[in-house]
């Protein structure tokens, strides 16, 4: 079985997941930004009353707001959501996330349990870490100059 077969068999639940930041659509952008900074995470997930994801407020959303000189305190995240939103279940195959990153360029993929409740965020970082773990001799042994890696780590 090739690696594509493994991606089809292995489930999203085995990808590195980050705890999601859940906000309401009427949360101010400023409050969302504070949470994102606190958790060092590049997005906040907008959920409805039942906890189902309905949108994504990301660093890109933030940049777009600042570029338009909009006040973060006076606008809500529901008005500045990302265009691309993919929600997968933890029991779905990892190939769904791979394809979303490779073909659609999505940075974040939201993960729910089988009842549709949000349980985490994965995406570009999750797939990259999964790949690195599967090919340790080809990836993890590589050295990147004298840079102290962990000191400069951005987070998800």
């Amino acid at each position, binding site marked *: 079985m*090739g*690696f*594509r*077969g493994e*991606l089809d068999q292995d489930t999203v639940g085995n990808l590195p997941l980050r705890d999601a930041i859940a906000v309401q659509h009427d949360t101010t952008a*400023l409050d969302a*930004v*504070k949470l*994102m*900074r606190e958790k060092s995470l*590049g997005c906040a997930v907008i959920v409805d009353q039942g906890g189902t994801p309905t949108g994504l407020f990301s*660093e*890109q959303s*933030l*940049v*777009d707001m*600042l*570029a*338009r000189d909009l006040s*973060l305190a006076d606008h809500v995240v529901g008005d500045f959501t990302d265009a691309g939103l993919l929600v997968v279940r933890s029991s779905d195959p990892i190939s769904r996330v*791979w394809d979303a*990153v*490779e073909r659609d*360029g999505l*940075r974040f993929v939201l993960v729910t349990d089988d009842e549709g409740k949000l349980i985490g965020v994965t995406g*570009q*970082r999750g*797939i*990259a*870490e999964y*790949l*690195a773990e599967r*090919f340790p*001799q*080809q*990836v*993890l042994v*590589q050295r*990147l*100059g004298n*840079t102290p*890696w*962990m000191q*400069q*780590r*951005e*987070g998800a």
Partner: protein
Amino acid sequence: MNGTPQSDPDKFEDPLNNYEPTPYASELHRVLAEEAIDDMQSTPSAQVTVDTSIRGATEMLSELKVSSLLVVKGETLVGIFTERDVLEKVAENYAALADQPVGEVMSADPTVVYETDPVGMALAGIAVAGHRHVPVLKVDGTVMGIVSPKRVLRHLSPYLD
């Protein structure tokens, strides 16, 4: 005479006679270990100079729909300004910082890879060092481009089966 001993062609042993290429379990293993980042066709990078204002750089990130800008002084890479820098260092104080130079808030001396490094090195920069975008330098140290997770996955995709 220059002191170099005369070599006898009849006694010459080619050291490469004993060379055996590294066996790999799959093409994917080989590509990660041996193919150069140059083969990946890294994306041309958006660049700003170190004295570009934070406002100008933020507008550029938005207009170009990119998540990072390489910060250069002449032809030398001195830093990278990313969406994460906007979140961490700029967002909550944007009005006061907007006219400051981007050099004040960029991430200086970023992790880089070279065009001749293997693809696995780019993946290490993303997965291990934790950078979403890794600048690619030519062997002479000038900027070549930038490599992203999407670019790495796209390069590996033909070798998955």
